[in-house]
């Protein structure tokens, strides 16, 4: 009997021990470390991006091309280049304010209030999504819940819960690729627990030594029958000088 018990214990230890060793060998990062690592990939002092947004509607898909000049997280200027009806429309974001200029009306209009929750150019993104400029670490409490395989790649699973009221999303769950340190999938929830938006990186690229999403797909989960919006980065350059005049309201009419 004793021999049998001893054999079972040895067998169990032999099974568990390698797992315990491997767990010891991989240090679980803190949420702050993960956010900092992602920021190192995704943010820069400045960036100039030419991108396409493919909005998949119920009847047809539309491609909107734009060029953006971004400084930090607080200043952004976007000019829409195509299709013809949208060409010439410009948007300027300065901290928490957003202005738009449309050549059809030759007016600069501030977008505020409930309009910020509206869809950006008919996409699955809202103006509010575009306006997010606070560091995730400042407004969310993060917990790294463990790791999971996502599309065959090892990823950290991190949950962020809002520290304060009034944020567009109360809880965020992200799958962060362990090698690329990019959020490969994200789910955004309301306080009630309802899934509001989801997104995933369909393709990544390496630019100037950092990993960056090449094709990013967003889906507004509240839109019935939404087929999602693809955001495709065609060109991106980091830390290029951008003249201050680019972020002036006068630049909207130029």
């Amino acid at each position, binding site marked *: 009997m004793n021999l049998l018990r001893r054999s079972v214990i040895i067998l169990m230890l032999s099974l568990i021990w390698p797992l315990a060793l491997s767990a010891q060998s991989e240090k679980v990062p803190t949420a702050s470390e993960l956010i900092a690592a992602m920021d190192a990939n995704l943010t820069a002092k400045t960036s100039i991006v030419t991108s396409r947004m493919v909005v998949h509607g*119920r009847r047809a898909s539309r491609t909107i091309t734009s060029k953006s000049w971004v400084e930090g997280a607080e200043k952004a200027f976007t000019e829409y280049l195509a299709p013809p*009806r949208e060409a010439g429309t410009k948007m300027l974001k300065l901290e928490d304010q957003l202005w738009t200029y449309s050549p059809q009306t030759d007016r600069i209009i501030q977008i505020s209030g409930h309009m910020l929750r509206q869809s950006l150019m008919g996409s699955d993104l809202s103006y509010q999504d575009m306006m997010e400029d606070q560091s995730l670490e400042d407004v969310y409490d993060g917990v790294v819940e463990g790791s999971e395989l996502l599309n065959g790649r090892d990823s950290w699973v991190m949950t962020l819960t809002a520290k304060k009221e009034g944020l567009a999303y109360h809880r965020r769950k992200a799958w962060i690729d362990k090698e690329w340190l990019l959020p490969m999938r994200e789910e955004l929830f309301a306080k009630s627990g309802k899934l509001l938006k989801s997104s995933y990186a369909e393709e990544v690229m390496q630019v100037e030594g950092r990993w960056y999403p090449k094709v990013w797909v967003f889906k507004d989960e509240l839109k019935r029958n939404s087929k999602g919006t693809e955001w495709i980065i065609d060109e991106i350059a980091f830390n290029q000088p951008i003249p201050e005049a680019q972020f002036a309201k006068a630049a909207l009419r130029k």
Partner: protein
Amino acid sequence: MLRFLIKGVFRDRSRSLFSIIVITLIVALTVLIRGFMAGIFDDVFRQSAVIFAGHVKVTTRAYAEESDLLPNDLAILGSDSLVAALSEEYPDMFWTPRILFAGLLDIPDEQGETKEQGPMMGFGLDLHSPGSRMVEIWELERKLTRGRLPERPAEVLLGETYAHRLGVEPGDVATFIGASMYGGFVTYNFHVAGTVSLGITGIDKNMLIADLRGVRMALDMQDAAGEIVGYSHDMFYDDEGSVALAVNFNEHVPNPENEFSLVMQALRDHTQMGAMVDISEYAIGLVLFIFMAVTVVVLWNMGLMNGLRRYGEFGMRLAMGETKGHVYRTTLGEAVVIGIAGSFIGTAVALPLVWYLQEIGLDYTGLFEGMTFVLSSIIRARITPDCYYLGFIPGVLATVAGTMLSGRGIYKREMSQLFKELELEA
């Protein structure tokens, strides 16, 4: 025999006068309430049809499912040819395309900067096509409070309260901010031609009415329309006819499984309107029932009193050999004569009153100030065909029923007691 009964009833006024007065009043009230209710329900249906649903409405299936969101990306394409086809196929109605849209209205100051901004609900109506009846059925000329009606595609009318809140005057520019049919960001400069007050607070507070051509330009919806609405030529809602039309149309739609195939809905298919249509039908039945019940009780009581008064007469008639059944039947005959006379007079009294309310109406603007109704501020009655005969139902039936109940006493008279009673009376 009938002439004998009629002469008897009218020569002996104690038999008929009070009964006829009661029946006249009840019949007049029945007809008046019927006309008044018909007018109120007509007004609800008319307003709902004009503003929201049409008597029937054609949309794509996908649009119908999400109509609360005003999903113009799911609009009907090739709407102009569809309007022509509907007009040819269903000539009993007139058909018109329209676009409902929502967004923000931004009012610039002298420098072109935002002065005021407010959410907006827009109606793109076919105001200018030859033969269009939109100005007429929306009663825009009567409801115009300032300025004039739009004459060009980019000219619009604003709800008076909305214009006041935004500080807009006729002649000002108002920039629409919203989404095009394809989801694109849209800004479009409309010119305010005038302001209107529909008298419906919930609509007036953020309403914009524009010509369809202007809205099509703004929303990139050339030859497209969110909805095609159909109205009967006399603008009265015929529920049965509209439902039958919708069923017929939907049976002949090709590929009904396709989300962009067309679907027709009758007014009753829209939220709460079905219940409203049913209520309108049941309400008149309920009114008739109540008046019938009241009339029966009153006339039963009158019959009993009459029975007492005519106790001797009935005794004498029975003593002279008239059968109880014959006495009973002649009293019922008298009741029919009285019922018809009272109903005729009651209907004749009520119809001019209903006509007055139909033509002039009852203005209750001050009574419910600040409240939101899908009703115009003037309630009107309507003379419906049944107003001419409806009063005869409680008028005659209740009189006969009351007499039948009270006349049962005739059968309780004992022949052996008759002569004693008559001796006493003598």
